């Protein structure tokens, strides 16, 4: 049976990982390449790199980081941040990305999803949606969660999947950073309306939160988190072992030789 994926997310600015990171045995804690290798060895099933750079120089450093990571880390790599055109897809795919996630770029121009899927295939196009509760409903937010688009989230996500998004990352603004567990209500509503893989993001604070996610929502395919992995609050190998012990299909690393 297909396994549930565990995905660490790295925010990269000017070629360096941002957010404090605290690992023993890691020479350069802000090196995305070293951190990617560390996570891959620990059993991460996939990695997400978010480019939070604004400058052209930062963008060049980001693609350089991507190229160096892809030469050493042989698990799927998803890239997001600053993806506004089909040319942006091209730029990161050439440097070793396997999938590209779109967020604000798709909100500005929803046809981006369709054009990218036609050119590279749906398996390459990941919709990332930042969602929060407003007036009792779910709304999509743009610009890193700062701007309420006024659009209803579930129909936005469904529409993007119809236009060709092959996976959906659902980031709950309400639970993000609170560390009290994933937003099961929101995720359940998304699982009801799409038949592509759903990746849960926002709210993980403990191993138990991942177990709860996969036990309560069988339609969720993967759990994504950043700081709890970066700070070592959750160790990926221990999380995977606990998932397997609790009967959740997980990919366990064979012992390194």
């Amino acid at each position: 049976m297909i396994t549930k994926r565990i995905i660490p997310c790295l925010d990269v600015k000017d070629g360096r990982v941002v957010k404090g990171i605290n690992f023993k045995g890691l020479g350069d804690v802000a090196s995305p390449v070293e951190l990617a290798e560390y996570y891959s060895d620990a059993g991460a099933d996939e990695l997400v790199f978010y480019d939070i750079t604004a400058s052209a120089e930062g963008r060049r450093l980001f693609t350089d980081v991507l190229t160096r990571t892809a030469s050493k880390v042989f698990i799927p790599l998803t890239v997001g941040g600053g993806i506004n055109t089909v040319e942006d897809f091209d730029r990161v795919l050439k440097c070793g990305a396997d999938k590209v996630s779109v967020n604000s770029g798709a909100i500005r121009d929803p046809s981006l999803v369709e054009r990218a899927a036609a050119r590279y295939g749906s398996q390459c196009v990941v919709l990332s949606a930042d969602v929060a509760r407003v007036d009792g409903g779910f709304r999509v937010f743009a610009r890193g969660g700062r701007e309420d688009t006024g659009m209803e989230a579930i129909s936005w996500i469904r529409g993007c999947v119809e236009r060709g998004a092959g996976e959906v990352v659902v980031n709950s603004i309400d639970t993000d950073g609170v560390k009290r567990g994933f937003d099961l209500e929101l995720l359940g509503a998304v699982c009801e309306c799409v038949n592509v893989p759903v990746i849960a993001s926002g709210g993980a604070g403990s191993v138990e939160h991942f177990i709860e996610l996969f036990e309560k929502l069988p339609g969720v395919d993967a759990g994504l988190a950043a700081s709890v992995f970066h700070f070592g609050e959750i160790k990926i190998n221990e999380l995977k072992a606990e998932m397997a012990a609790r009967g959740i299909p997980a990919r366990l690393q064979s012992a390194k030789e």
Partner: protein
Amino acid sequence: MTAIVDYGVGNLFSLSCSLSYIGEEAKITGDRREIIAADRIILPGVGAFGDAAGKLTSTGLGEAVREAARAGKPLLGICLGMQLLFEYSEEFGRHEGLGLLRGHVVPVSSRPGFDARLKIPHIGWNPLIIMPGKPLLKYTSDGDCVYFVHSYCAVGCDESLAAVTEYSVPLTAAVQKDNICGCQFHPEKSGNTGLDILRAFCGKDRGARQC
């Protein structure tokens, strides 16, 4: 030297990196002579079967691959590249493949007993169930997970079947008949398990692993 056949479909960067990583010299090429002269050949591919088969025919590269394979040169098809080794596919009408292996390609969802609630494409890490006696999988164990992304699968390939994976029904995951091999999954994206499969194909010692 391993020739990675470049016929204009798919991203060959990671595949090329993974071969360098295991110490195998790799060349991405669309030159028939280079393909025929290589020690071994990898046929990659993503996208639609009909488009890819058409490109292999129009460029003459399909014939070069067939010629090298018939001369006994090791050949590995990956993902769509594996599907192209078979006789034909039923993806959007009937399209002829290279015919190097017996079998054909059908939608995963058309397999008898397939649970229609499961997602298509079949995306993610799934464990292998291995048939004995296949050199391609000599470093691989039952239960090792590999990374899949596909909506179609090979059937009628009992004579070459090397591994299956369970997605409510068994799906062909790897094949090998003499020098002709294929992986439905992406060995270049399957961590150490995938690198070991590439090592087995390239005749590399597993001890040469960098860690």
